[in-house]
């Protein structure tokens, strides 16, 4: 009820002149609700206030007879959804949200959460009981999950508009971890089913804000501060301004959502497309075109940058700006310490919004956090070359790039992009020089989150997937790169010209381009300044001799 009151209050905002007294009453309930939200800050995000999603729907789901009865489970709701949306199941099943798999046509690599090793909890594979909370399905906890059953699709995680739907791990896990998810109010399936709609930021955010194991941990430009951001944090999602839902840019076609990190469009030359066309693209250019700045003297020069510099490079001056920190480094080597035989965590980083973040957890190791971070810049053509579970590397050759950015400096298909660079020290197979799958989550004795034994967790993780394991593990430093593309600042906060066009500026060390203001001080300037100095000295000498001779002459006279 409270939530509904709040929603209707928000939808009335443009008509504030009307019903002032009612608005006052609604305002009172809002305050109560916000206090509750603050108390529940550590609980699942769905408790927080909802965003308002624009909709031109011709249907009110609460009037559908298919939804006017009790449901006992998610799959039952899904069956009801599919009885009208007959093709939606097939569509969803073809997407990465369902398959967790992506074959990159450019590199031939098989990517996706089903396969990749990352630099956070390292692998979802084999840990689906926990990780598949963020799968758009019901109950993926091991190999037995049936990917062909349409009722296994979770429609609600994206389409719930009550804010009361939530997901928990698909298996119990070790008791040390399971306590996190206790004490939740049961889901009122009928209520949720009758209140479906287009996804709001909190729907996408329920997973994408929390990647890597917590709020803002993974991306740096995606965290819970984007639920109701101010304009200074994000011009597009500004809750009191444009208030874009994610899908405003991430257009979908048959449930396939544009803008995947696995196959990025680093340089969109198609721009806004044909008149009236709605392109299946999440690029800035698909709305702003390829010459987005004003056609004045400065604007024309800025438009010239479009060829070599991604929009994000200037328009996202820093990331993790919303008061939520992002993890910048993670050291697995220190994991496994216990106090009285129990795992523990140490606090030590207070982030901008006042919340305390752990700097050590027995189950994960030590972390560093950062906010208002300046991105790492690199040439990028949209392709990432992944170090997958079967890639061999030489650990002596410095940090392993888990997703090496492809793009030649100055190449026509590449642009300079901003990234968050994550630095991790994580386990690897010392004998085979490969990354490893760890068995972290489980009810058995072999799971790391329970026994704190890397050797057994790795052996189990590898054996479950029939992968070779030498039996000896070590730790290797890794880098991963996360394209920064959200938290677009208002234009007056964009990166100033001189922050790149200067020595030791943001783009120091970026090759493949002549950067006025940075690239001086070479032979040309040495010769030029010498010429000017010699001319000046010559003139001074000439004047000096003239003065001396004049004096001498006057002396004679």
């Amino acid at each position, binding site marked *: 009820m409270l939530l509904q009151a709040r929603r209707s209050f928000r939808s009335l905002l443009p008509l504030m002149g009307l019903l002032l007294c009612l608005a006052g009453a609604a305002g009172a309930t809002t305050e109560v609700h916000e206090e509750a939200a603050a108390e529940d800050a550590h609980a699942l995000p769905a408790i927080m206030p909802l965003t308002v999603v624009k909709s031109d729907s011709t249907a009110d789901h609460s009037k559908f007879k298919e939804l006017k009865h009790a449901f006992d489970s998610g799959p039952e709701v899904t069956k009801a959804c599919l009885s009208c949306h007959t093709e939606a199941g097939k569509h969803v099943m073809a997407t990465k949200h369902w398959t967790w798999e992506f074959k990159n046509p450019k590199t031939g690599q098989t990517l996706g959460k089903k396969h990749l090793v990352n630099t956070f909890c390292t692998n979802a594979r084999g840990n689906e009981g926990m990780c598949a909370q963020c799968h758009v399905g019901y109950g993926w906890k091991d190999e037995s999950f049936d990917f062909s059953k349409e009722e296994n699709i979770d429609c609600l995680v994206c389409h719930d508009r009550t804010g009361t739907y939530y997901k928990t791990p698909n298996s119990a896990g070790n008791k040390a971890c399971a306590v996190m998810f206790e004490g939740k109010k049961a889901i009122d399936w009928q209520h949720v089913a009758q209140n479906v709609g287009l996804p709001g930021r909190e729907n996408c955010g329920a997973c994408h804000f929390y990647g890597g194991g917590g709020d803002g941990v993974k991306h740096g430009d995606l965290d819970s501060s984007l639920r109701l951001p101010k304009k200074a944090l994000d011009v597009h999602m500004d809750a009191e301004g444009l208030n874009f839902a994610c899908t405003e840019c991430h257009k979908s076609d048959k449930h396939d959502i544009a803008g995947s990190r696995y196959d990025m469009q680093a340089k969109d030359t198609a721009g806004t497309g044909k008149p009236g066309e709605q392109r299946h693209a999440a690029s800035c250019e698909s709305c702003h075109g390829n010459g987005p700045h004003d056609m004045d*003297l*400065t604007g024309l*020069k800025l*438009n*010239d940058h479009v*060829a070599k510099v991604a929009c994000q490079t200037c328009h996202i001056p820093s990331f993790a700006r919303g008061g939520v920190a992002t993890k910048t480094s993670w050291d697995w080597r220190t994991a496994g310490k216990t106090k009285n035989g129990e795992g523990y965590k140490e606090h030590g980083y207070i982030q901008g919004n006042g919340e305390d973040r752990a700097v050590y957890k027995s189950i994960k190791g030590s972390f560093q956090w950062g906010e208002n971070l300046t991105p790492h810049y690199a040439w990028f053509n949209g392709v990432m070359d992944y170090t997958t579970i079967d890639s061999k590397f030489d650990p002596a050759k410095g940090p392993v790039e888990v997703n090496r950015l492809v793009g030649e400096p*100055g190449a*026509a298909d590449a642009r300079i992009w901003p990234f968050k660079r994550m630095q991790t020290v994580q386990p690897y197979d010392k004998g085979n020089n490969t990354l490893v799958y760890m068995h972290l989550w489980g009810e058995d004795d072999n799971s790391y989150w329970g026994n704190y034994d890397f050797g057994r967790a790795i052996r189990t993780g590898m054996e479950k997937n029939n992968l070779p394991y030498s039996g000896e593990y070590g730790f290797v430093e890794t880098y991963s790169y996360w394209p920064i593309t959200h938290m677009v600042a208002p234009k007056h906060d964009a990166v*100033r*010209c*001189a922050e790149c*066009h*200067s*020595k030791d500026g943001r783009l120091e060390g970026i090759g493949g381009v*002549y950067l*006025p*203001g*940075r*690239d*001086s*001080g070479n032979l*040309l*300037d040495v*010769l*030029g*300044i010498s*010429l*000017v100095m010699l*001319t*000046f000295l010559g*003139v001074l000498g*000439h*004047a000096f*001799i*003239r003065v001396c*001779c*004049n004096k001498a*002459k006057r002396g004679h006279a």
Partner: protein
Amino acid sequence: MTMRTVMVYKRFERIWHWCQMALIMTLLVSGFAVRGIHHLVDFRSAVSVHTLAALCLMVLWLFATFWLFTTGDWRHYLPKREGLLQVARYYAWGIFRGEEHPYHKLFWRKHNPLQALAYMLLKVVLFPAIWITGIPYLLYNVWREQAPGWLEPVVWIHVGAAYAILAFVIVHVYLLTTGHSFVAHVKPMVTGYDEVDLTPAEEAYLQESRIVPMK
């Protein structure tokens, strides 16, 4: 031959000279700021000012070129060997001994031979080097894909020419201090009038025709 005070720098020429002076100084300051040699102006303003001043200067040069060729004044800049060595010798030697300048301004030849040679080189070498590279530099994005490696040479010539122009400015200003006085040198470019050695025929013609003001 009689010395007369004659209008040698017509109004357009004076406007041209001083506008050009202001624009070149602006371009030098903003250009070296863009290059990163100094930080007196922030990069963004420097780029805008540089572009705007360059466009103005090119328009001015279009007018000046038109003026030079329609009035026939371009002939003043034709280099002549006659008297060149004497002037060079004067600046290298005679000036220290208090000798008189070997050149007398003539009505059809208002610059001394060394001066005419220097101005001509400025007009046919340095200025073209600046604008022939400056325009492609400004329009880099138009041709970048056809000739990707050409930006560097364009930059080198543009910046090199800028240093040479700065050296010219230093010498040009210094030479104003030679002769009678700095003011005496600058004044003709302000009022237009200068002392010129006229033949009786020239004097009579100018007096009679009044095509050029004479005091």
